[in-house]
Every structure is written in C-alpha cells, then in structure tokens.
C-alpha cells in the first residue's frame, strides 16, 4: 500500500542527498523564512518541504502531477488536513504507547504487535471512511488513485477478517504447536497451528477435564517449578516466533504506510499553510506554465519575493519582465533599489515551480532548468580583502564542478572583491563560458565596465534591468529595462542614512 502523492509511481525519498550547493541556496534565497511559514510549527513538514524544494523536478509531467494535486488541496483543505492528522495520530499513538516496542521473546513481540495492530485498525477504518466519501469530490489523478487504492485494499470484509485474526492471536484457549523430531529426537520445526473447528470449544473442555485428572498424554508443570515454566514458555516462543514475526512485520508495514502517507502529504499541507499566509498578505498566487529547458522563456507579471512579504508581514511590490529568448540578465542601478530582492524572487519562483508549487505572481511562465545555483557576495568576510576574492573564486570553481547546461545561476555582486577592471575581466571570462553552455544567468552588479562590455558583445540575448529611482531619489523597488549607468546612487543612500539619523 503506497500513497503515491508526490510521484505518480514512486515514493518520495525523505533522506535523499541534497545538492552539494544547497546550503548556499537556502542562505542566499532566505528559504528558511518560507519554510517556516510552510511548516507552521510542524518540523516534519519543514523537512519534507525543504527536500521537495531543493530537489527540483526536471520532468514536466511530474510537476503537472503535483500541480493538479495541489489544486485539489486548495479546493478541499479540510479533508486533506484530516488525512494528514490521521497519519500523524498513528505516529503519536505509537510513540506514546509503544516506547520500546517489542520485547526480546516472541510472546512479547506478539502481544505488543496485537496491541499496535488494534490501534492501527481503528485509524485505517477512519481513513477508509474518508476515502469512501471523497473519491468523487477530488479531480486530480493522484488523489483518485489514492482513494481508490484505500477502498480496494481495505474492504469491509478485509477489515472484519483483520479483527478476527487479532482476536485469534490472543490465544485465549491455548496455543497449538506442531513439531517434528529433529537431531537426537529433539523437537524442531515448531509451528503454530489453527486447530480444527471441532476442537476449538473442545480444547476448553479438555483442559477443564485435565485439571481434575491427568490423562496419559498430558501433564502439568507445577506452578512453583520455575525452570519448568520457563521451559514451557520457551517452547511456546518457538511456536509463536513465525506468527509473531509476521504480525510484527505487518504492524511495521502499516506503520510505514502511515509514515509514507504523512510524508507524501506533508509538502501539500505545507503549501496550504503558505497559501493561507499569502492570502492574508494579499499576495497573488498562480500555477506556473512550464516550458522545456532548452526553450528559454521567462515572462511574468507581478512576481513577488515571498520571503520579504513574510518577513515584513505586509504586501510587497511585484515585478514584471518579458525575458523570453534571453540568456543573460544584467541588473544594476540604485543601491537598496530591490535588486537582491528581485534576484531572490527569480530563484524562489524557479524552485517553487520545479517542486510543483504555485508561484507568487499574477502570471508566470518559464522554462525548466537543470539546477538552480547562487553565487552571492559574502558580506561577513569584508575584513580580509585578499582572501575574499580567493574565497569567491573557489566557490565559483565548486559550482563549475557540478553545474550542467540549461541550469540557472544567480550572481549577486560577485567578483567585486578586487578592483573593477580585474573583477570585470574575471566575470567576463566566467559569464561568457557559462553562456556558451546555455546556462541562464541573472547577474546583479555595480560594475559598469562589465555591464557595458556585455552591452556591446551579447546585445541579442542580454537583458539589462535597472532598479528604478525617481527624480527625487526615492525608490519604487521596481526594476525597469534599461542600459547600465555609471553611478549606483550610493550618494543617495548616504544622504538618506545621514539625514534620517
């Protein structure tokens, strides 16, 4: 029994290795802010969502599969949250009641497995009821498949038979064990048997009779005979070992079914949590349109940077661009004009789209990419000028080790740790090489020299964006298309800071 909600036909792997550069991604895109909103205090949702976001899907069908499911979730949030609650309850109940679960002897294994199974059975019944009621309400292929599976596998008959077995396995009328003679005539091949019907009541009678009179083929172990009673329970253990194992494994399997269900739903519940938050912040949400990785599309209206919205807990400005066919986006202009924010919104949107999520925009379409990489200036190392370029370049070299064609890379004031001429030269070398590999680049820079040289060289597929600055020096935090300018308006910021103080 598999839930298959993250993929059509395979499990979502919780503990898969994240890409090497994921720490940079998380830090540079401030992903933690978004993940916190998704988690809404549920660590598990946090972790699953993080993995889902960082391990991008490259296959359009896989993304569409999730998009459909997510739309179902947005339409039926209560039901989805209820299913998630059931899965969570399975885990909590188990944890609360079966701390050290199974003991070291088969009888102990069996009795704790029976208890665990009784608890699971109740939850399976609840799940079955939901599935029964919801199969026609949901539209997505994923949910239809899931509900159908539950209805098929957990039929009324099956659930009834399960109750029956669990009752049997408490052996209220004695344990019936078969054996053969092994080496040295020692009993072996002990196995649990189901006595024929006519004996079931009979056993009771037999034992009643026995307690009065010992027959020729039976005996009683004196209750004070400790060794004898231990021998007896050892023997019973031999008979129960297989069945105990089977039941314990089943319990384990059902447990892992619930764990699996919880895993497969966590991401969607996270999306619901985020969705609710964004709604309250008047932030638009859209299902992105996907294009193949070699198609070079990037067009959106009103793209928001979610993390900024969540941090400010307020509405934020959206950006529009029509960047189809562009391989290089050079963003320059006013300090604190929203360049970094814009860069992050690009990265976040790409990751969200490629995890099957919605995107915070009025409309959004883009091509898929093979991977998202960030190379941001690291502020903290400011004191060590010489070492810093070195650090930047080695980070770049690590990226080059792993990056593939049709990836997306975001640079934020990279290679500015040295003088501009050198920095530009280095950046030019790197950017030209990446462009030749069909890697899409967003490059935030103050380096006029660099921006200018690309203006001459790669006119056709380069887009220049400027952080808007009004005549009076105020910023709109909007980016407009425009050629690089020599000044970065540091002066403005300087004044702003010094005037306000």
């Amino acid at each position, binding site marked *: *029994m598999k839930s298959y909600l993250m993929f059509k036909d395979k499990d979502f792997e919780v503990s898969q290795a994240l890409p090497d550069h994921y720490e940079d991604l998380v830090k540079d895109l401030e992903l933690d802010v978004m993940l916190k909103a998704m988690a809404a205090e549920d660590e598990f949702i946090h972790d699953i969502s993080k993995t889902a976001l960082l391990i991008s899907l490259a296959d359009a069908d896989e993304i569409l599969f999730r998009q459909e499911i997510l739309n179902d979730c947005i339409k039926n949030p209560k039901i989805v949250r209820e299913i998630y609650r059931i899965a969570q309850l399975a885990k909590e109940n188990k944890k609360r009641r079966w701390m050290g679960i*199974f003991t070291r002897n*088969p009888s102990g*294994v069996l009795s704790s*497995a029976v208890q665990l199974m009784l608890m699971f059975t109740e939850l399976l019944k609840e799940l079955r009821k939901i599935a029964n009621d919801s199969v026609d309400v949901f539209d997505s292929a994923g949910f239809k498949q899931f509900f159908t599976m539950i209805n098929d596998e957990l039929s009324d008959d099956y659930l009834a*038979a*399960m109750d029956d*077995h669990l009752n049997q396995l408490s052996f209220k009328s*004695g*344990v*019936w*064990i*078969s*054996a*053969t*003679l092994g*080496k*040295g*005539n*020692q*009993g072996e091949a002990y*196995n*649990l*048997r*189901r*006595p*024929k019907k006519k004996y079931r009541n009979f056993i009771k009678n*037999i*034992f009643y009779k*026995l*307690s009065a009179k010992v027959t*020729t*083929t*039976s*005996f*009683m*172990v*004196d209750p004070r005979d400790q*060794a*004898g009673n231990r*021998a*007896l329970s*050892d*023997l*019973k*253990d031999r*008979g129960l*070992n*297989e*069945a*105990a*194992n*089977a039941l*314990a*494994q*089943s319990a*384990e*399997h059902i447990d*892992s*079914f619930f764990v699996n269900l919880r895993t497969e739903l966590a991401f969607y519940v996270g999306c619901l949590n985020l969705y609710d938050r964004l709604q309250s912040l008047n932030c638009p949400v859209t299902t992105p349109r996907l294009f193949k990785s070699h198609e070079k599309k990037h067009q959106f209206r009103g793209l928001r940077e979610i993390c900024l919205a969540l941090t400010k807990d307020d509405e934020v400005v959206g950006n529009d661009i029509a960047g189809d066919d562009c391989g290089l986006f050079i963003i320059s202009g006013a300090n604190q004009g929203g360049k970094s924010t814009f860069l992050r919104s690009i990265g976040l949107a790409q990751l969200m789209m490629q995890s099957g999520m919605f995107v915070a925009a009025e409309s959004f379409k883009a091509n898929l990419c093979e991977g998202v990489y960030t190379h941001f200036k690291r502020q903290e190392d400011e004191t060590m000028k010489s070492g810093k370029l070195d650090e930047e370049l080695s980070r770049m070299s690590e990226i080059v080790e792993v990056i593939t064609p049709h990836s997306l890379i975001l640079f934020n004031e990279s290679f500015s740790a040295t003088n501009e001429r050198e920095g530009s030269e280095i950046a030019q070398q790197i950017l030209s090489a990446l462009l030749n590999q069909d890697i899409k680049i967003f490059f935030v820079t103050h380096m006029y020299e660099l921006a200018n040289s690309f203006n001459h060289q790669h006119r056709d597929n380069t887009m220049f964006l400027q952080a808007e600055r009004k005549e009076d020096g105020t910023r709109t935090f909007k980016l407009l298309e425009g050629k690089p300018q020599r000044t970065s308006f540091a002066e403005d910021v300087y004044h702003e800071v010094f005037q306000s103080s």
Partner: protein
Amino acid sequence: MESDRVMKMKTVLFKNEQDSQRLKESRPEFFADLNLDQVVDWITKNKEDYRLTPFLYTPLEELDAIVYRQEVFRDLEDKGLLENLESFAKYMNVVRRYLGVAKERHYENNKMGWHLEAALVYCDAVHKLVETLTQADLQSEGLKGCVKQFEDYVQSESFIQFERTSRDLKSELSSIEYNVIIRDNWVRVRKFNSEKDYSREVNKFFSKFEEDEVKDFRVDLAVPTGMNHVEGKILDLVAKLFPREFDHLKDYYHQYENFLDEAIATFDREIQFYFAYITFMERIENFGLRFCYPQLGVNDKTIHACDTFDIALAEIHRREDLAIVGNDFHLEGSERIIVVTGPNQGGKTTFARMFAQLHYLACLGCPIPGSEAKLLVFDQIYTHFEREEEIQNLRGKLKDDLVRIQKIIEAASDKSIIIMNEIFTSTALEDAIYLSEIILKKIIELDALGVCVTFIDELSTLGEQTISMVSTVDPDNPAERTFKIIRKPADGRAYAIHVAKHHRLTQDLIKERIEQ
C-alpha cells in the same frame, strides 16, 4: 564387528608396527634448545583431541619408515585429495561430538537419538573416505594399503546392514509429526492431524502491507544444548504415541552400541599428523619460503642443504612480516663439524639450531625448510646450550658445562648430531681454547656430525673434519647484519676493521684525526 577383515591393520603413519609401539609421551630433552617445543605447539594447535604430540616426539630410525611418510606427504600434495580427506575428518569430528552428547544425556530417547545421529554421520564419513581414496591417484604405500582395507570394510555385509538399518530408522523417526498444546501450565501431546499452518495464514493475510525489507522480528532462539525436563516429558509422550518407532530405536541402540571401526578411527587420528604439518608448512610457504623432501643417508655423511632456514624463526617472522634469510651448508669427505664464528647477532645460533631441526624434521618423515637437501638418519640429537639459571659461580658453571658435555660424549655415537652453542664463554680465553679443542677432538673421534658456535677462530682449523663458516655483515655498514652464514675461513679481525672504519677508528683514520 568384523570377522571377514584383513588380518593386519594398515596404518598411514607407520610402516613398521614396532614404531607405533615405542611412541614417546614426553618432550625430547633438546626440544627447548632447538625451539622445537614452540613448533610442536603451533603444529598441534586446535588439534589437541587427536593427541599428535607423541608422533612429533618420536623420530623414525629407519630409512624405509621415513620414505613411507614422505610418500604420503607427496600424495597429499594433491589439493583435491587433501580437501576431501579433510572433509572426512570433519565428519569424524561430528561423529565424536554426537557420541559425546549421547553419553551425557539423561533421557533415554534423547540419548539413543544422538547415538543414531552419530552413526549416520559415521556412514557418510566412511563413504567419503572410501570414495576419496579410490578416486585419487595414489602412489604411497601408506595410502594404498588403506584403500584396500577400507574398501573391504564398506562392502562388507555387516556394514551394509548397519547403514541400511540406521537410515531406515532415521526416516521413521523423521516422519513423526505431533502437536503440543499449551495452555497456562498444562501440556498435552497429540498426533498431528493436518491442522492448518497458522503462521502462514497470518503472514499471507497481512502481506498486502508488505513493502521493502523491514526488520526481522524473529527472535534468535538459541537451540538449547541439552534437553530440559519439560522437553523430556514431551518426548516420552511422543514415544507413547509412536511405540513402534521407538521400539526400533531401542533395539538398534543395543545392537550397534559400538559401531566405530578401529582402523577407521586410527586413520582419522593418524592422517591429522599430515594435515597438521601441511597446514603449518603452507603458512610458511605462502610467506615465500620453500620446503623440500630431503634425501636421507644411513651411513653416508656427505650432507647438504640449500636455501634452508630456522622453521621456528620463520614462523615468528611470518607473523611479524619480517624477512627471512636462507642459508646453505655442505659437508663432504671427512668433514663432520661446522665451526661457526663471526659477529654476534649475526645468525650463528639460528644456524646451529637449524642444522639440528632439519635432521629432526627429516627423520619425522616431513618435508623440511629448503630447496634441496641430503641429510643423515641420526640416532640421537644432543645439544649443549648455555644455561644461565644453573650458574652458582664461575667454577660451578665450568664444571656444569663439562659434566653435561661429558655425558653427551659418553652417550653419542657416530650417528649422533651434536650442537654446541658458545660453550665456555665465561672462562678465561686460554682455558676456553684449551677445553674447546679437547672436547671438539673427542667429538671428531666419535665421528658424529655437529655444529659448534664459538668465538674461538682456532677451532675451525682443528683438522680436516672441521670446516669454517662465518656470519657476515654488510661491508659498508658493519652494524647491518646480513644473516648470511658463509663457508669461509674465520676472520674475526676483518670484521673488527669494518667496525673501526665505520667509526673512523682504524689506525690510519685515527692518525689522520689526531694530526688534524
């Protein structure tokens, strides 16, 4: 059990029956001096049950008996044969173990059950042995003699009858199926009546939840070694339910209480002598050293050995992964005594030990260290090593030394081997030379073979019976021993020059240094 058997039992270890009658139970006196005590310990490790030490304590005195064993060793160079014989040995080991179990069990039905198990494995062992030996291309008189004898045994009416009865009985007992019904402290035993396998049913019912591998919850229930009284009672009840089968068991037990054939049991023990030595030898061979079958002379004292080494040292070096240096020696014509001189720690004592070890191992009939050798069938080995613990005073020690050497000379014959290691070291040089010369002359008179390790160069030129061998050093770095013992005139002084040069203390060098 046999009456139609070959009259005289063949054994794989002894060509001459009298050799098997004169086995020594205690260590030869010289064992510690030659480090053979360690070697025997290594060889017999984990094989204590076979009591192999008497075989290793008793060298053979006749050439044909030695060759008899060498031939068996050669046959066992066939890896396939060796492995098959080893699996026979493993079967026999099981047989003994089961018989041991049977002996110590209290419940009759359990005891007789283990006795039957032993018999079944014994039948397998016998077949394995006969099949192995008949299929092998045997050359040795020792093994060939055994084949014939064992073939007759396995084809005998009584063995066939014994095996058939054993197997029939086992299959009768194996087909018994019963139920044990436990409720609280009540136990009831019934015949099995095709009740449904409930483990399987449970397994099948819940299998839809089955996914990837999960934890195995089966508890590893140690199979109890004994039989407790509850199991004993259950078995008694089972016996009541199946009286025919258990009556058969009782009859069988009485008929075949002692089923082990003496010749098979003897072979099982004796073949271990070969296994043990081969195992030990192969470890050293795998370390890159060679063993060979020595030629042996009864009166001929022209002897030699090439690339040979101290077997005990080799094992120690193997364990520590240190190199071993091989050495050669030869004696011809009237040469009898090797006088070894040269720097200390250069391998002199090792060489002397080795000389005696080689002879000892050769006369056990074993392959010996080296690429090629011809040795003497000795009558006795005598060693004279310094014994620190017996020193009371110098006078006492010298006396003690002389007493010991006197006893040796008295007992030794022209077929003896005498090893003298640094005797009279604590004596004044002149006395030492004097005594040594006298003693050595006496040994020469005996016409015995020997090695004399000494610091006295003069001994090496005592007569045509003595030859000189010298432990050597790296000429460029005299501190570096080569552990090569070379046949050349004793030259204690030459070594001194090397050392001096190394420390820039030769006459010329000192002159130079002083003048500067």
